[in-house]
């Protein structure tokens, strides 16, 4: 629960923080020019933004819907495999590949969500994990598309036949544009009528239901939207690495997405961006010191959860309350 006093500060913060984040990300290619390993830095930050898109999609249902999906990496994988499988058949243009990715994610979300939403709390976590693992093992068994080893792409997707994404800067700005669009779209969704019902159902589903809202339908719709957005991240990830593999769908990856959202602060959307930024940069930094970087990273996460309730956003007085 935010006190009225600090909520004004949080409101101001809700505009300045994402703005600052996006400005820094937009200027990064320029800054990288003066850093050693320019290509590497640009690649790293493109990766940060791709995971930020995935984390935002998770925050939409986790932070605003109260649905802890522990199988969200499946959507990342679906988006990536849409790129890999269509490429294997000679189709590489965004205008076809992206709709395929979105359709696959929507169908998967609709089918698994309809079943998973019948459960609550810990059972929902378990069942989404189970569906995620099903997707993972299905991918490993696709022997004609690389099976366990995955699938290498000959080239990045084209945009209307043009190799816009082939250049690392072009790709970087395409990812940034996708991130900004996804962020603004989700901002609008959570403030809309739909978002209001979704937020209400998180706090009190019975009250929401007895007001006349079919809570199940609202949650399922949010799950489908979230899955589609995450598939966009998957589409971009496959293009960045020019590689697709079942590892994209592993349950550890689903866990990482949850950690990013919680680290940044649930239910704010830009918290998810901040979370993926800090997570991936720390990973990069610490793994440079030692291969046992997780020994340092783990306790750091514990400290954030213990001392910054509401995630890193909580440190600034923003983020979701209680």
């Amino acid at each position, binding site marked *: *629960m*935010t006190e*009225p006093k600090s909520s004004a500060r949080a409101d101001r913060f809700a505009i300045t923080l994402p703005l600052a984040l996006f400005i820094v990300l937009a200027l990064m290619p320029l800054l990288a020019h003066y850093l050693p390993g320019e290509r590497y830095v640009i690649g790293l930050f493109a990766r940060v933004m791709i995971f930020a898109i995935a984390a935002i999609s998770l925050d939409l249902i986790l932070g605003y819907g109260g649905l802890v999906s522990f199988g969200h990496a499946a959507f990342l994988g679906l988006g990536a495999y849409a790129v890999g499988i269509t490429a294997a058949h000679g189709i590489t243009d965004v205008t076809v590949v992206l709709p395929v990715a979105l359709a696959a994610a929507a169908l998967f979300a609709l089918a698994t969500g309809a079943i998973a939403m019948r459960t609550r709390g810990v059972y929902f976590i378990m069942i989404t994990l189970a569906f995620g693992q099903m997707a993972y093992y299905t991918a490993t068994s696709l022997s004609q598309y690389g099976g366990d080893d995955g699938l290498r792409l000959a080239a990045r997707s084209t945009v209307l036949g043009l190799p816009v994404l082939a250049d690392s800067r072009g790709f970087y700005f395409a990812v940034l544009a996708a991130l900004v669009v996804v962020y603004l779209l989700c901002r*609008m*969704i959570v*403030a*809309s*009528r*739909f*978002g*209001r*019902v979704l*937020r*209400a159902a998180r*706090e*009190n589903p*019975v*009250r*929401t*239901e*007895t*007001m*006349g*809202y*079919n*809570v199940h339908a*609202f949650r399922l*719709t949010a799950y489908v939207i979230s899955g589609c957005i995450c598939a966009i991240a998957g589409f971009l990830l496959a293009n960045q690495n020019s590689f697709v593999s079942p590892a994209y769908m592993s349950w550890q990856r689903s866990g990482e997405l949850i950690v990013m959202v919680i680290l940044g602060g649930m239910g704010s959307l830009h918290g998810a961006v901040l979370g993926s930024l800090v997570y991936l940069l720390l990973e990069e930094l610490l793994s440079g010191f030692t291969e046992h970087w997780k020994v340092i990273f783990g306790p750091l996460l514990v400290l954030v959860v213990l001392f910054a309730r509401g995630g890193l956003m909580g440190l600034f007085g923003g983020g979701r*309350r*209680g």
Partner: protein
Amino acid sequence: MAEPILRLESLRKNFGGLRVTDDVSLEIQPGEVHAIIGPNGAGKTTLLNEISGLVPVDAGHIRFEGTDITGTPAHHRARLGIARSFQITSIIPGFSVQENVTLAVQARSGSSFRFLWPAASERRLEEAAEDALEQVGLSVRARQPAGTLSHGEKRSLELAITLALQPKLLLLDEPMAGTGRGEGERLIETLRTLKGRFTFLLVEHDMRAVFALADRITVLVYGRVIAAGTPDEIRANAEVRNAYLGEEAA
């Protein structure tokens, strides 16, 4: 008499071996305030849950305006015009007081599957919510987070939510529970002003409220209806006095 707005026909419900609703039949006329009283564990709240669709019944029928709604889901019954309040205050604590009511207004004004337009900019919804808050005297608290209200104010907010749904039938589960004496008096007064405009089914332990408001009373003991009638009839009923009211009410 007119067609009853609500009609329960031989409802039955068991929780394991416990019979919580035992052959309950009752009728509520439009515009009436109907109170259900009875000792703790008599199955009063369960009965409201059955009517609002939160708990399925084992046997019997529920008819609302002549239509059988026995198997209809809760959200659909709310759309038909059955609103309820809860014994344990049920609001959206993280929403402002106003947004709690706006959410209720939104439920009966068009589709909520709208994704892009900011809901807070819909003046029509906000105005209707302001009216409902005015009716229960909560206007000054409109901007405050609902979770920070006092207990009595939360009860009033819940009433505002149910009013904003513009229901045909209001199911109120112990609206007086836990309110202070002054707050209770105010709540009775508010309910009295609403009498006649809505139909009420009221579960209440507070006999002051029951005898001040009810047109008819049904007495429930161990899931069974042991008496039904006007307040005077109930007051005079020896069996009811024995089972529940005690000598003080005489």
